[in-house]
């Protein structure tokens, strides 16, 4: 009965109801986007860090991985210290740098990682072989396209260029073994990987036995935070970063987007609330006589309140359902804009759809729908019956 009356009231003014639903849908879309922005960035980053099972990373003291050109000296000694901890299962030392590859009369520059292929966590092989031998180089599709080369081709690779003598330094002939996808690679970024020993040999004595980053897998059931604390006490020249600390640092750096999401989300919710309240209030004012008649024939106050709250909730739910689709489309568009941040890993999504985010947005909207019905319902329930009927009769 209550639902039927609420439905009749909404259908009576179709265009008005549709406009209100549209308004709520836009507010809901904005709210969903902002909930996705506030939670998605962190979740996407966490998934990325854990995608290969490395829970702790070591960078030169006071830096973040690959934030600077600084390196950690004594790879063998550091590895020996780390191996003494039974909670540490696997260690992957990574050396970062840049290389020049000759492609005909052109010179193509690329970022390069020196890795141990048996424990690496920086790329996934798309086809072909991994960099098992010292003369192998794996490249991403972008670099392969820039080189105009094919798998199995031999290329001239140099680790440096001397502008005075106009010659390449640390030259090697390497065979392209297979295309790879770099997990932390940015869009339109040329990337290559080779064995760490090969890169060391090409880079000269100053890069020998050094690493830009260590990635550590801990034993199942071990506490990564305890391992991190232990490393910091054992190795004073490194900064140990666990997934939790990395997320905290990213949170701090990107706090602007989180705060923006919070403010715009709150504004959207308020706008939706205001819109539904206005619509239901106008509707109650118009039906003052009708409500007075209902009350006069014995319909309880609770019944009237429930009917009006149902109206508010119905508009909010219809708007929320419509807003969900709209929100996903706008989130995709906004994500495409933010994904073009220079140096941002391709796998990072600012707007990540999570069912929890959608439920949160829907829950907030339903709560707002109920709240928006409260004021008009209270007004309707407290209408003086006789006076309202008299006014209606005069009108």
């Amino acid at each position, binding site marked *: 009965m209550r639902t039927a009356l609420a439905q009749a009231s909404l259908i009576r003014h179709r265009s008005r109801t549709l*406009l209100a639903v549209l*308004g709520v849908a836009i507010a809901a879309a*904005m709210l969903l986007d902002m909930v996705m922005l506030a939670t998605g960035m962190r979740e996407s980053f966490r998934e990325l860090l854990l995608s290969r099972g490395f829970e702790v990373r070591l960078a030169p003291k006071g830096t973040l991985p690959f934030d600077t050109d600084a390196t950690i000296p004594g790879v063998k000694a550091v590895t020996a210290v780390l191996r003494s901890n039974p909670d540490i299962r696997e260690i992957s030392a990574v050396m970062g740098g840049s290389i020049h590859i000759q492609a005909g009369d052109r010179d193509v520059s690329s970022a390069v990682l020196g890795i141990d292929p048996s424990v690496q966590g920086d790329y996934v092989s798309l086809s072909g072989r991994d960099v098992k031998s010292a003369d192998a180089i794996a490249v991403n599709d972008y670099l392969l396209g820039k080189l105009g080369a094919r798998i199995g081709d031999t290329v001239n690779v140099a680790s440096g260029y001397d502008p005075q003598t106009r010659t390449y330094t640390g030259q090697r002939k390497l065979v392209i073994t297979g295309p790879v996808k770099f997990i932390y690679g940015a869009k339109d970024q040329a990337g290559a990987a080779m064995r760490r020993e090969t890169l060391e040999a090409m880079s000269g004595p100053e890069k020998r036995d050094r690493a830009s980053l260590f990635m550590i897998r801990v034993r199942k059931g071990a506490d990564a935070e305890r391992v991190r604390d232990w490393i910091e006490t054992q190795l004073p020249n490194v900064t140990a970063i666990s997934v939790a600390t990395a997320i905290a640092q990213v949170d701090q750096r990107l706090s602007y987007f989180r705060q923006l999401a919070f403010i715009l989300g709150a504004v959207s919710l308020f706008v939706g609330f205001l819109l539904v309240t206005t619509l239901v209030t*106008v509707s109650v004012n118009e039906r003052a006589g009708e409500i007075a008649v209902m009350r006069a024939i014995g319909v309880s106050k609770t019944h009237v309140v429930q009917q009006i709250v149902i109206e508010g909730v119905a508009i909010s739910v219809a708007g929320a359902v419509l807003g969900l689709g709209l929100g996903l489309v706008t989130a995709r568009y*906004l994500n495409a804009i*933010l994904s073009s941040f220079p140096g941002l890993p391709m796998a990072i999504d600012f707007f990540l759809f999570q069912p929890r985010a959608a439920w949160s947005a829907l829950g907030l909207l339903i709560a707002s729908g109920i709240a928006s019905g409260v004021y008009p319902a209270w007004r309707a329930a407290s209408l003086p019956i006789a006076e309202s009927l008299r006014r209606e009769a005069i009108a």
Partner: protein
Amino acid sequence: METSRTFQVVSRFHRAIGVITIVASSVFLLCIMVLKVDERRRDIAALRLMGISRSSVVRTIVIESALVAVLGSVLGVALGWVTSLFVNWHYQALYRTPLEFSIVTAPVVVFAVSLSLVLGIGAGLLASVRLARTPPLQLFGR
């Protein structure tokens, strides 16, 4: 170069958010204006029954809508200016920089006020023409 690209991305993101906000505000304003005019269906019916012409009724409502839009714009500009001060104070303290994050410029104010006027008048016109065309007795619910 990278910093410049970063600013470009942030700027594009802000523009996109701005467009979404404008669309949302437009629908909101349209809704409120239509509701406001719709609420006065009995007054309009009474005016029409007294012999006031349709065009006079429409004009009255449009002027009223424009006044509401102007008043809302003035309040909105004041609120925007205060919010802008707060945003600058907050982010300048957070990032320890003298950079201004939000600036209320004359073109921004003119754009906001013009948009709100156009939408207000448009919504008032739309709703009043619809009501003025409806027979007065029907507006009374008879």
